[in-house]
């Protein structure tokens, strides 16, 4: 009885294992390639890219909280054309599936990004970030089922590659957004993006982060919230669910698989331990073997 870690995300995209590097915590692979064996993880979800280059927000962009961190990067990226022309040609070298994370304020921007990346080899699928809390209107598309369906359907029309829609947890009913994405043609959904949070610079009597003072909370602090969100999404849809939220070790990954995830993403943990994701891959294998299971989905709570 051998363990089979592979995961089918749909449209012919089969990940070697369920463990991925979360968007925005692994860049486009160029840094981590030098630190870990990217070929060992199931997928790399790239930093969010937009139709046009973005300089990103003014610093400070990160701030630590109890068991978590806030970020307000503002989607700094060189723009989708540069990603397609200069980055994508290297992706095959990573030895894992590369899923391009895409962000924008308008539906057209998403469609344009995907159109441009369609020509690029090395891109195995797309993750639509309709939930970035750090750009103006960044959350609107992800906070309303109709809007979510609109952007998903529009992108679906221009690609046959695997299409993942990344859900915002900053909503009343995440299940409803997931259903909207599913019915609009998403092959899978990922949950969750960061939670809107704030840290106060006590003596300056203002927030640490610039602008409105808010950023996206990630890390162990959000794990229980993400588990509840993943369980809700699992109940709502039948397509694969990719979980993220404070996953730091094998046990955390197991918890999300129990809650209903088909795959997981390791984000903030990579900052403290670049090889966290790689270690979780082998940890999952051993955990399943020890439990006498052959597939990760057998861990699921029914």
């Amino acid at each position, binding site marked *: 009885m051998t363990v089979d870690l592979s995961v089918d995300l749909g449209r012919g995209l089969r990940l070697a294992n369920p463990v991925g590097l979360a968007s925005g915590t692994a860049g486009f692979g160029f840094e981590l390639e030098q630190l870990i064996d990217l070929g060992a993880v199931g997928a790399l979800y790239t930093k969010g890219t937009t139709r046009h280059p973005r300089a990103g927000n*003014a*610093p400070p962009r990160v701030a630590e909280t109890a068991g978590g961190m806030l970020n307000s990067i503002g989607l700094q990226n060189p723009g989708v054309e540069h990603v397609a022309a200069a980055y994508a040609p290297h992706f095959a070298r990573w030895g894992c599936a590369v899923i391009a994370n895409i962000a924008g304020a308008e539906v057209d921007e998403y469609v344009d990004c995907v159109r441009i990346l369609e020509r690029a080899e090395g891109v195995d699928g797309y993750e639509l970030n309709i939930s970035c809390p750090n750009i103006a209107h960044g959350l609107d598309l992800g906070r309303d089922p109709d809007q979510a369906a609109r952007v998903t359907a529009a992108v679906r029309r221009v690609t046959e590659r695997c299409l993942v829609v990344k859900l915002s947890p900053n909503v009343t009913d995440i299940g409803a957004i997931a259903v909207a994405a599913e019915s609009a043609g998403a092959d899978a959904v990922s949950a969750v993006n960061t939670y809107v949070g704030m840290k106060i610079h006590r003596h300056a009597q203002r927030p640490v982060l610039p602008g409105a003072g808010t950023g996206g909370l990630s890390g162990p602090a959000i794990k229980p919230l993400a588990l509840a969100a993943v369980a809700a999404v699992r109940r709502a849809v039948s397509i694969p669910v990719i979980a993220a939220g404070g996953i730091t070790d094998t046990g955390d990954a197991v918890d999300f698989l129990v809650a209903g995830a088909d795959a997981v993403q390791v984000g903030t943990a990579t900052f403290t331990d670049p090889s966290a994701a790689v270690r979780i891959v082998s940890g999952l294998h051993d955990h399943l073997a020890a439990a006498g299971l052959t597939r990760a989905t057998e861990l699921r709570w029914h």
Partner: protein
Amino acid sequence: MSGGLDEVRDERGEVVSVDHLGGGMVEIGVRMPHLAATARPGQFAQLRCGTGIDPLLRRPFSVAWTGGEVAAFVLAPVGAGTRILASLRPGDSLNALGPLGAGFTAETPATRALCVSGGLGCAPFPLLIRSLRRQGVEVTVVSGAATAELLYPPERFARGDDSVAVVELTVDGSRGRRGLVTAAVAEHLDGATAVYGCGPNPMLAALARTVELGATRPLLAEVSLEAPMGCGFGTCLGCALPVHGADGDSAWALCCTAGPVMPIRSVAWEELMTLPAAHVA
């Protein structure tokens, strides 16, 4: 698409020495063969603070010295993470990710170098000075702090090389000259063909102005900067610093990969000074 991470390792080592330098400042020696063998002047390491989730993130510290298998860090308790590090004792184990970042230009074109250190900005200088002296460069250090006990011990800059002159200043005049380091910089700038700075941003900004106004322009002028860091290796994009872009107008550069050491002229000082401090005391 930054490179230069191929030397980076996640290394666990035993603390072999903890020297208390006064004012809470400590120099911690850790057995880390890889870091000790590969760290270049101005590079840093990301240190784990404790083993729990609070603090969650590693903290960046310059590699202050390397000898044999030991790498040393200089720090003081300014917050949660440094409090944990400052309380380490010999025998404890420490985890470091490094060497990280762009250090000082290795081959210096200079014959006379001026090192300007403010407070804990002393940290990168011992390693830099060793490299400069090996290249036969004449070195003068201008070292300043708020008060005497916060001054880095002068003998630790040169580590036994008597040819290195250390000029000390304190804001309260409790040791050396009274005043800010920049006061002394002007007079030592003359003839210095290389200038290196590390310390609080206001000090570095003042240094930049002084260098600009200086009669002769040094061949090399570099500063080591700080930014709060998420990762330390270029993936989180959290450590942006304002610089003068190619096209002249301002851009962001990553402190952890483009820096922490940057040419003094590439930094957009006015913009840097308007940024709110990251440090949450």
